[in-house]
């Protein structure tokens, strides 16, 4: 079996937002929607700081769908629109999505967006990968682990574009894959492990 996953090096992440825009471009993500974002942890402004001056710190958390092994979103989806595919990715069948937003309430990572209106694209044409399906008003959407690219044997766009080389993508079921090795040797951890969702996105420092 193949189980795609990712490990993100938080030491190397400089919060540059390149992955966030790479995702927006690749997936033709509409105005004011983001599938992938880089949080300044504990800050209420981007690039803020925590602590008391001058003892400050700032860490970044790149955040998108965690492609959980035990996805909370899938369990609550009443139509089966959210599913775990054969490559271990959590995907959405937009045809089946009825816009109930149960998945959004269930996701502990706040990884999903909802199209309350018909998506608006700036620039006003279909930028991005030609194989990425359009989303319409009334459906939920999120990171697909770049399904279209990974199906073609390419790495996700955020991995390809990271200027720091902070992201490693691969097959978690293959103990010899780079991602598996990094997770094992760098003591990678998962977000909100206590939720029991078992994310396939790992973080390490």
């Amino acid at each position, binding site marked *: 079996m193949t189980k795609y996953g990712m490990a993100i090096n938080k030491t190397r992440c400089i919060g540059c937002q390149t992955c966030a825009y790479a995702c927006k471009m690749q997936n033709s993500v509409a105005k004011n929607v983001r599938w992938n*974002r880089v949080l300044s942890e504990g800050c209420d*402004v*981007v690039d803020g700081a925590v602590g008391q001056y001058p003892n400050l710190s700032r860490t970044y958390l790149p955040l998108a769908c965690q492609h959980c092994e035990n996805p909370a979103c899938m369990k609550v989806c009443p139509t089966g629109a959210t599913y775990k595919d054969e490559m271990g990715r959590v995907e959405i069948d937009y045809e089946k999505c009825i816009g109930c937003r149960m998945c959004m*309430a269930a996701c502990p*990572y706040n990884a999903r967006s909802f199209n*309350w209106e018909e998506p608006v694209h700036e620039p*006003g044409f279909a930028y991005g990968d030609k194989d990425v399906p359009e989303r319409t008003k009334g459906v939920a959407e999120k990171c697909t682990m770049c399904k279209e690219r990974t199906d073609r044997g390419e790495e996700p766009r955020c991995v*390809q*574009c990271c200027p720091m080389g902070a992201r490693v993508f691969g097959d978690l079921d293959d103990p010899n894959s780079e991602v598996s090795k990094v997770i094992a040797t760098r003591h990678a951890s998962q977000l909100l492990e206590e939720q029991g969702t078992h994310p396939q996105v790992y973080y390490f420092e």
Partner: protein
Amino acid sequence: MSESQKTLSRRGFLKGTGAAAGALGLAGLAGVGTAGSLLSPVDAHAESEERTAHLCHQFHCLTGCNLKCTIRDERISIIEPSDIVKDKKHSTICLRGIGEVSHIYSQDRLQVPMKRVGERGEGKFEQISWDEAIKTIADNLKETQQKYGEGSVFIRKSTEAGIDFDFITQLLHADAGGQWGLDRGQANGLGPAFGPWSYLSNRSHWEFKDAATIIELSHNPLESAMVWSRPLMDAKEAGVYIVAIDPRFTGTAAKANEWLPVRPGTDAALIQGMLKAVVDNGWYDEEFIMAHTSCPYLVDRATGKSFRSSETMAPNPAVVSAEPVGAPFVWDTVTNAPALYDDPAVVAALEGEWTVDGKQLVTEFTLIKEWLDGITLEWAAETSGIDKQAIVNLADRYANNGPAIIDIGLGGADKYTNADVLGHSTAMLVALTGQYGKKGAGYASYCGLGASNPSATLNYWTLPEEYGYGESPVAMYDMPYKENSIHAALTFGDAFTLEAGAAQDMLNWVKTLDFFAIVDLYHSSAVDYADIVLPACTKFECEENVKQLRDSMGHVMLANGMVKPLFESKSDLQIERLLAAQWGLEDLLPKTYEELARFMLDGVADADPRMEGITYDALLANGGVMALPETGDDYMPDGTADFFLTPSTRIELYYEYLADQGHALPVYEDANEAFETNPKKAQYPLYFTQGKSRYRIHAYYSAAEWFQEDFGPSINIAPEDAEVRGISTGDDVRVFNDRGSFVATALINRSLQPGVLFMAETTYTRYYKEGFLQNVTNSARLERGYSMFFGPQIPYNDVLVEVEKA
């Protein structure tokens, strides 16, 4: 909270997405008569035609990534790292490259030639034809030159537009505006010591991991140029100790082991504290000093002039005049007499004082020690705001703990009038500790320029010799203040508000011009003041298949696979040709970018065998990218300390040319306005600083709608400063001083030291509610700067302001 900072927790997600939906409702309007209307709505991709193109992106972040563009239905739909660069570590991109998908098609692109119909500054225009626009510009420039002489026309191309060629300025013998006054403050100060171009490194930044310590001095590569900051993160992972000296808790400071939050404009005091500790504790490298520096050279104590030979001369590339000087003397301890510095038989004294023919001669090192005797660590600490022990510890670490690098920013500390003192002080610290010219050591701006990559040999298209730049007796940034003969101006890009401080002074002067035309891509701040506006196209667009030929990252890159210019825009080359034709001179220019690129490569292999095989046709056959032979991981230039562009070819620390002004040694002085004891602080208590943002290169990318979702004209303020003024995040606040004011959005940010404001460098006035940040910036000039290599610098950060809720 913007979508991009939607937190991990689910609180308010419904409300948040609802707000986003509200914003979407407005967006429909934006398509009318703008980029959107030219382009059909989102449609199915299935039957679309795709092709790929490659080009070299920005020079201006000093990166120059090769980008692979997927063009679908003649629209640039995907931009990704190049897959055809030979050296895969240069297969890079950052958000600015990706954001071009938004930026190229921005609503704020200039689309058609326009003429002004309102007052200057009012921003009222009507569309005209290219013929009318070009003729109007030519008629006005001709009339001005007939009336006031050739030097009455000022023409300047922006950095990016000026790469490869600048024909029209030379064809008209126009004034190109002299010194730029940008980002060379430290370079002014370190140049006489290490050579004028030594602000660029002579070793590779891929060597960062070999250092024990890296000091990022007023440098924030993690936000200014992400792509070439990768070696810094390699160094961090390798355990190198990184120190960030910056008034602000920058992205780079956040990754550093230690952050030293200097007060704005006082970096030199901290460095001088380190110098004090190094000399007092004997942490200097005497062997290096004797072999590679001017420390043993003799100075006449009474006159402050160097004691030089009147017979043996040395060329002096370190001063603008390049006039040769006498070779310096040292004190020979064998003969007990002065001797030429490079006489191999001489054993020179490092310290001492002697009387010769009634002259009191003293070594530079003795003078340096005497000068440092007058400095205390307490003063350094009090002035810079950095704890005394932290200064000593850093000096110890820098001098005594293995190879160390000082990586300086171009910008930041350069934007204070006393930046030359910082450059000179740091040059002295580096020279005395010998942290130069060996693996893991160095001092410069480690950016995409310098020695990090091998460079290509290319021909430069020249005009017949009767054409050339006119005189530039007054730098552009001084034109509002100094008598000059300029009556008409043509700028490619917004020179007037980007390349000068105190915008009210500059724009009031621009209003007095008989004529001003601008060529630009976007509706920049200066556009509203122009009589004629010409729309240029981006580097992704061209009338022909190819565009710029560039030397970047060890590769020769020919932009190819262009899309046609959007709207009625044209390429810079065709705009220059149209203008030249008005004087009948267009045949002196290449007809096309292809002709220019072929010329640039023609016969270069005869002069430089490394260029063998890199021809126009070979480039096109290779997607437009070919590597130079040395390119690859093995390329690691061995920059030494054996030769410097100074008269004695050693590091020269005593600046004789500034002796009359009291700055032969880097005597500390306050910045012009930004200093603690300035009485102006009673009225304007806050330091106003600006710097780079990852979302921009200066003002560029301001018009990208994707970035606008996250980033606009906002002013970062420390919580305690906000609280006493009743300011909350999101408030409109007025920032003001005697020079002017503007209104921006407040962001309360703990990353600021109390008393200091920060804003990303200027953006277009149209994005502000009122005014823009250059209204408050400083136009003071350092008088001694006029005798320096890069002239006085614009002190953009040497600014005090007050802030109030608007």
